[in-house]
């Protein structure tokens, strides 16, 4: 029962001052085991804040990130699942499923998490699942209009993942979930 928080595109301080208060009140330390962030934080203070939620933090570089040392892509294994992380501005056309599927095959992961579009989506294709957690602050984007703040929490339990989608719509937090099962177990390689 591993909880993984996936979020990104906060664009603090350029496009948004902070996470919505309702989100912040829910995100308390001690509950989440891993945090994966697609990028565009953009400053170190946000990095530190995310670090307080959970010590295991993974970030990939977005085009507005001030810290240039983040990698372009990252893969990690949690439980039986392999997760891939990438900001998404590198994959053109932005948000296109086929291109993202190509990236997923390239990284060889079950779940690919990307951002950049500031729009929550969750696709399934033959190679696996692609999840876009959207923008956690609902920051302005030239692709998506009226983006709602959103993030994703994954509960990985054996071969099953329950994806909880948290969205702030009209000032209220709405939570939905998506179930996803994997058929074969991953053979673990030393990480």
């Amino acid at each position, binding site marked *: 029962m591993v909880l993984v928080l996936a979020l990104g595109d906060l664009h603090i301080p350029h496009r948004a001052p902070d996470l919505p208060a309702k989100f912040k009140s829910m995100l308390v330390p001690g509950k989440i085991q891993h945090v994966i962030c697609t990028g565009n934080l953009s400053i170190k203070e946000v990095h530190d804040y995310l670090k307080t939620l959970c010590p295991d933090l993974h970030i990939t570089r977005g085009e507005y990130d001030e810290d240039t040392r983040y990698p372009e892509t990252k893969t990690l294994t949690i439980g039986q699942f392999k997760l891939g992380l990438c900001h998404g501005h590198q994959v053109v056309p932005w948000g296109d499923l086929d291109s993202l599927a190509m990236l997923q095959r390239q990284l060889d992961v079950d779940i690919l998490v990307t951002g950049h579009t500031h729009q929550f989506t969750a696709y399934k294709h033959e190679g696996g699942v692609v999840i876009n957690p959207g923008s956690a602050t609902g920051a302005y984007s030239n692709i998506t209009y009226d983006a709602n703040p959103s993030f994703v929490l994954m509960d990985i339990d054996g071969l099953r993942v*329950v994806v909880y989608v948290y969205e702030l719509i009209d000032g209220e937090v709405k939570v939905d979930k998506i179930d996803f*099962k994997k058929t074969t177990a991953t053979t673990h390689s030393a990480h």
Partner: protein
Amino acid sequence: MVKKKVPDWLNSSLWSTTPSAASSSTATTDTNIFDHHSPTTASPPLESPINPPLPPTAIRDEEQQQPRHHHNHHHPQKPEIKDKLSKSSIVDDDDNNNIIINNNYSDDNIINNKIIITNNDIRNVDDDESSAEDISKQALLLTELSKKVINMGELRRIASQGIPDGAGIRSTVWKLLLGYLAPDRSLWSSELAKKRSQYKHFKEELLMNPSEIARRLEKTTVLNNDNGKSESRCVLSRSEITHGEHPLSLGKSSVWNQFFQDSEIIEQIDRDVKRTHPDLHFFSGDSSHAKSNQEALRNILTVFAKLNPGIRYVQGMNEILAPLFYIFKNDPDEEMAACAEADTFFCFVELLSGFRDHFCQQLDNSVVGIRSTITRLSQLLKEHDEELWRHLEITTKVNPQFYAFRWITLLLTQEFNLADSLHIWDTLLSDPEGPQDGILLENGSLMVPPVGYKPVQYWTEETLLRVCCAMLILIRRRLLAGDFTSILKLLQNYPPTNISHMLYVANKLRGQPSH
């Protein structure tokens, strides 16, 4: 008179634990098995208390014994005085818990005693487990246990003298004493089945993590990825969550929230379980047995904490649980041992119910709390040995809380090794003296427990306090000679002692002091 002197019987060299060349009465043991006899042919008493350790697999011989004398009824219930073993072999076991053997017996009544021992885990066995005594007790107990309806009073009487280690008797007797098994044997199988399934139900209900609970609650369709070669590409369907249940929920009724709140307690339990009895292979180490035993302890404590939100888990409960589980798990009866976890849970609840007020911080200063119990101990000491009491309380200002707290709350498990604790617990569990209403005193008045106390709880505590008092009285010489530091050092690391002797003394403290 102001100063109460130490009772004579306490001062007799009968009770001194150091080997003395000039011992007292040397009456033959033909007529009275309780008389001490000096080792005549048994060589000069062994000077060093350290004897070579026994190979742990040496098996105890239960050889023929002579016809037993029945205990003289006006002798108190501590028959395990070393009438069979020579005096020198009663020397305290040293820190290595080596077992003392002495094969020389002066008494021509005694046949070669090959001695002993052990479970590979119990590192010390009281020397009083001389086989002859034990066999008779074992026989008595077995007879009692095999009756259709067990006479609890009789069982208590025999058990309070100590239960022999073999044949899984202790496991059954404790279950009877704690009320887990009814005196009527015919009810046992049905009762046991009921209780065990109840425990299983508790475990399933309480030990599930929220993911599983959520899975059970959900009624939405699950997207099955069973088509490995499906070409389908689709947007994954979102579904509503039930009852606002999500991992970050802050709602009071949320399963997840409760889970995270409990996780702190679970962590604490986990830490304590790992630290329980690190010297015993049964509980610690890397073997799968140790792991599964620890798992069982963890489960029991977690279920208890969840079922009792008022008291939750307090550090120390693991120490009270450990001997129970140890005994039940080592029951030679396979079926009993397999269900040890469930049995232990209920017995643990029962045992703790008598003492749970000690664990509740809010009750510390109340009549039933730990402070008041410690005060009772003080009072008891004052009644029986005023000189010592004065020395401790007033002269050296040793606050009884410094030592008695651990003695009382943990039921003396931390002061002695496991074998001795078991022996002490035999007496504690089998001896809630006194009728429900009160004890009739010599002067005709009725001693009743104070308001707020359950009578059974009060009397069981009385027994415990008497044992603690005996512990103090036994080392009075050293205490009287010591100052604050040395006294505290002594009491917080209680020196190894003869348990039967101690229990005998404790028993003598019953009722009012004789003078």
